[in-house]
């Protein structure tokens, strides 16, 4: 396979990064310029990701060598089909949430636009860098860039958001430290940091203790970053207390990127046979994912705060993605990656809806959502579509990814896991149908319900949701349906060529 050289991969990362440093200076001069410039950088990133994806589809993987140093000495960016898909997804979600944040951030965090967009762009560049890089240590740096900007963004929310952000800092840093330790171990036996080079050197060292320990630390570190049960303690607080645009962004992207890194290292740096047989990580991950799917959904049912409910549901949905990776066969992998894409769309949209409801009515309690469908018809429609996607009703994308996951579980003859997927879907119906029911119920009549409707944030003025917030939600919601209708295209173009060699089909 001939691999092309191109500067497009680095431009996707570097444009938001440079813009983020320009913004504070620009903000001193004219504050109103900050948002358009940030939006320009994000659209530029998205446009470049489109160009790159087209190129990858037509001519195969694209590479870029930093400073012209060839790997294994230099840092390389390597974009294959999977990375191209992730880049498209990440730049698209960051662009849409960026548009949405214009009005919502002014209302939730007044007078902080300049630092907000600065950090937002750093997060965007960190995320894209994380999926592009082919260097283990470079990956660590991007992981920390992403996490640091996440901590800062989460702390912008009101109430106890700062405390949640601090907890996130502690646990996130432990995850990153474990990752660093694993890189150290792998380097100590191979003397290389480049992923392709490691993949070449490692097979003869699979019995080495250092490799086994390094791999175990890697899995734990990344599981902490993506909040896989039982390492999810930081997630509910961070997601539910952050500003709504931030919740939507980090729910849609950061944990997904960690799952991508897990798949990348497990199947592309190590051989699938190592992750399946030598150190049976895939089995452990499948069972942890199964517990996450059940417990996350049960916890979600117990919540009355919409954002907190969505946060617990995220823990369950991460379970689906990890289960797909842990099944370690072609079908399961397809289902996992497809669910990763679908879930990024659905969960971002659901958090955006939660933010829009707070924006217009100031309500966060599910029981206070009565009659919302008559005052906010488009918003509730978007919520309903995404909720159907989460439950897995056809023709939404969630249905097809769950079908592939179930097929993968059947291929591997894991009958218990088939049951877990089905039960978890029913539980998802349990918590989401409850919200939809309240949204479409007629207005409350008795005093008791009126009392609940007191806004917890108390900053609503009944101002209708502006178009800049409505349109991103509707685009994401229609994306959920389009991903379902055209899931064949996504699979045949992006996922099939990316299924790692050596996985049982």
């Amino acid at each position, binding site marked *: 396979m001939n691999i092309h050289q191109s500067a497009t991969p680095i431009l996707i990362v570097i444009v938001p990064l440079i813009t983020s440093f320009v913004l504070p200076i620009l903000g001193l001069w004219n504050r109103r310029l900050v948002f358009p410039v940030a939006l320009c950088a994000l659209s530029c990133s998205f446009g470049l990701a489109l160009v790159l994806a087209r190129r990858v589809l037509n001519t195969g993987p694209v590479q870029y060598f930093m400073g012209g140093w060839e790997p294994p000495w230099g840092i390389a960016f390597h974009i294959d089909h999977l990375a191209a898909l992730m880049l498209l997804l990440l730049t698209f979600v960051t662009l849409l949430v960026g548009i949405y944040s214009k009005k919502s951030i002014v209302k939730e965090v007044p007078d902080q636009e300049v630092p907000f967009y600065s950090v937002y762009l750093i997060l965007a560049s960190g995320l894209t860098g994380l999926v592009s890089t082919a260097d283990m*240590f470079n990956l*660590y*740096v991007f992981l*920390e860039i992403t996490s*640091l900007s996440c*901590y*800062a963004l989460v*702390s912008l929310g009101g*109430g*106890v958001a*700062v*405390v949640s*952000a*601090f907890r996130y*800092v*502690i646990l996130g*840093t*432990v995850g*990153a*430290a474990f990752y*660093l*330790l694993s*890189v*150290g171990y792998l*380097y*100590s036996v191979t*003397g290389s940091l480049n992923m392709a080079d490691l993949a070449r050197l490692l097979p003869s060292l699979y019995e080495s203790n250092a490799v086994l320990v390094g791999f175990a630390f890697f899995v734990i570190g990344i599981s902490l970053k993506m909040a896989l049960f039982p390492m999810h303690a930081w997630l509910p607080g961070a997601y539910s207390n952050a500003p709504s645009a931030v919740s939507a962004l980090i729910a849609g992207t950061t944990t997904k990127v960690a799952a991508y890194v897990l798949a990348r290292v497990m199947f592309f740096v190590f051989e699938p046979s190592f992750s399946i047989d030598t150190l049976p990580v895939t089995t452990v991950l499948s069972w942890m994912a199964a517990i996450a799917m059940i417990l996350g959904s049960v916890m979600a049912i117990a919540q009355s705060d919409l954002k907190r409910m969505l946060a617990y549901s995220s823990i369950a949905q991460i379970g689906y993605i990890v289960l797909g990776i842990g099944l370690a066969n072609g079908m399961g992998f397809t289902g996992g990656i497809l669910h990763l894409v679908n879930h990024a769309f659905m969960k971002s949209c659901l958090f955006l809806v939660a933010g829009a409801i707070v924006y217009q009515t100031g309500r966060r309690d599910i029981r206070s959502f009565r009659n919302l469908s008559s005052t906010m018809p488009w918003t509730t429609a978007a919520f309903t579509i995404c909720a159907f996607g989460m439950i897995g009703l056809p023709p939404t994308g969630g249905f097809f990814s769950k079908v592939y996951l179930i097929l993968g579980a059947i291929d591997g003859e894991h009958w218990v896991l088939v049951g877990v997927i089905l039960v978890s879907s029913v539980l998802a119906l349990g918590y989401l149908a409850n919200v939809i029911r309240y949204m479409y119920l007629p207005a409350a009549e008795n005093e008791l319900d009126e009392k609940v409707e007191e806004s*917890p944030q108390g900053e609503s003025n009944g101002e209708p949701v502006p178009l800049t917030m409505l349109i991103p939600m509707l685009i994401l919601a229609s994306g959920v349906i389009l991903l379902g209708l055209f899931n064949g295209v996504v699979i045949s173009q992006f996922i099939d060529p990316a299924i790692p060699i050596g996985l049982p089909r």
Partner: protein
Amino acid sequence: MLDFIIGHFNNATYIMLMMIGFYAMTGKTNLVKKLVGMNIFQWSIILFVVSLSAKRGATIPIVFGSHNPGGPAHLDASNYVNPLPHVLMLTAIVVGVATTGVALALLLRIYKKYGTLDENELLKRARSSG
């Protein structure tokens, strides 16, 4: 057993430091102490990776006298320390400093808002203020 520990002295040290950091992160209720624990945790790993390239009797990877005619014709890699782990850990230290900075900024805001850095007291006050 003792020989094994002495033979893996760097491993034993980093694990001990790591456990001290872990204890501070989980056992202490003061948030600043948690942060200090987090730093010890990170630093233990940095020390470990730096120790990987330590070599008795080796020198920095600069070839002395190579400018002169008649300098060393061939080099023996075992005489030189691998500089890469140091450079990597330099980057990791920078990342660690940035993390500490963010965490301290958060602690400052927590203290301004709630007037305490003790976790139990903080949760009590956060609950009462809503």
